[in-house]
């Protein structure tokens, strides 16, 4: 009997496809998310919008909060560790968290190296802005990718930019003759074997969710129509004025992302979305998607 294999790590992400993973900070929020139909929750001390507003160093959440959330729901529970902070990750594994997010939303602990994710039995999800970054993370052992977007803004523009970039680069790899793949791997800064795998499969070797700025059912369906496998919603639910209704609507929109009539129906009367921040007006140093390498 083998545990912690690549197959079971990537397999859990396969089972989450077509679903919504919601950021929660309390057991009560976790129950609202589960009741709305979330496929998993991300246990946090503060949602990204609050991390952004309050500043300071953002670290792994208090294990007490994580445990209370794990006890409150039956769906998988994820939690974030700082980029490169493998001890925070060891602690999360000791808590038997279902998935670790090595996340740029927290303050990076290492400016050069990400965690060697192969060393863990618990699977990892990591952020990426382009194909090279996604394949580097997979090379380090990530079993799931999420496009980064710009967390805590409620502005979907960066999430769109990142998935379009990944899609563009995948098309380039797929269309390239095999003898050009090594040079493409060099340009992307990606492991050659993974570039070959992308060409063979015509997609990323692991499941890819959208994240960072999704605030409405239409945003979720947009990301699904652009080819994402599922949706992370961070601040978008519990920073809106009717979290339960919005959460349920985003779940429906993600499941039926091609059905405009249904999207119109579920978008009705769910209250006001989070106010948000226009990414185009932000200074470069205020963006967090640039964290990670």
């Amino acid at each position, binding site marked *: 009997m083998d545990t912690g294999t690549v197959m079971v790590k990537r397999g859990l992400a396969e089972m989450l496809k077509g679903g919504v993973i919601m950021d929660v900070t309390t057991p009560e929020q976790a129950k609202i998310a589960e009741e709305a139909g979330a496929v998993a929750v991300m246990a946090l001390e503060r949602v990204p919008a609050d991390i952004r507003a309050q500043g300071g160093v953002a670290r792994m959440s208090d294990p007490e909060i994580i445990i209370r959330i794990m006890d409150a729901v*039956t769906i998988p529970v994820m939690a974030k560790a700082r980029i490169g902070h493998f001890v925070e990750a060891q602690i999360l594994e000791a808590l*038997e968290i279902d998935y670790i997010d090595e996340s740029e939303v927290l303050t990076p602990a290492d400016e050069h190296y990400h965690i060697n994710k192969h060393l863990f039995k618990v699977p990892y999800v990591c952020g990426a802005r382009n194909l090279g970054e996604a394949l580097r993370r997979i090379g380090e052992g990530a079993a799931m990718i999420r496009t980064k977007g710009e967390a805590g803004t409620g502005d979907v523009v960066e999430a769109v930019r990142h998935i379009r970039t990944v899609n563009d680069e995948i098309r380039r790899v797929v269309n390239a003759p095999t003898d050009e793949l090594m040079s493409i791997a060099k340009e992307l800064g990606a492991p050659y074997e993974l570039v070959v795998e992308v060409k063979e499969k015509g997609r990323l070797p692991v499941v890819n969710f959208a994240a960072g700025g999704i605030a409405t059912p239409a945003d979720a369906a947009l990301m699904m129509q652009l080819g994402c496998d599922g949706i992370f919603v961070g601040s978008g639910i519990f920073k809106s004025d009717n979290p339960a209704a919005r959460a349920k609507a985003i*779940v429906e929109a993600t499941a039926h992302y091609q059905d405009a009539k249904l999207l119109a129906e579920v978008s009705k009367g769910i209250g006001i979305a989070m106010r948000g921040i226009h990414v185009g007006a932000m200074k470069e140093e205020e963006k967090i998607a640039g964290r990670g390498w």
Partner: protein
Amino acid sequence: MKIGVLALQGAVREHCNSLRACGVEPVEVQYMFQLSEIGGLIIPGGESTTVGKLLVRHKMLEVLTDMGRDGFPIFGTCTGLILLAKEISGSQQPRLNLMDITVERNAFGRQIASFERDLAIPEIGEADFHAIFIRAPYIVKVGAGVRVLAKIDDKILLVRQQNLLAAAFHPELTTDLRIHQYFIRICADRP
């Protein structure tokens, strides 16, 4: 004959690929009207509470229950097994309420306990089946009409009750097509 894969959430693509590899055309089923086009339905792995809620919201739960009672073949993997069960330990979540089995969710533990191992399934052939278990359920009790096709110790992992087939693991994540072929035969043999 076409076979449907319930496409509300979960490992839809993998089941469609397995069906294609068996030479059967898959239909991704999202709406009630599609149920009349298919000779059987696979309920894939996913999150059972999510899929159950979506079935209720789209009023498909009762329709599928009626169809299953009338002999329509349904094959559930993991989440699908949970949804086919009459009893789910400690849970009132929505279900199809079709098979005389009692299921324990996440019975092996959290993700860190997810595993793969070879499983003897004499019903589909002599060679072991490489089975992948992800936050898997198992069956703790079966009724009189339920045939147990695979188990580890007293944990029941693959069962058949006439037109209904349920696995606690994920044959769609492997290239071994024997369980899919077995289900296709159930669909083809339906009078």
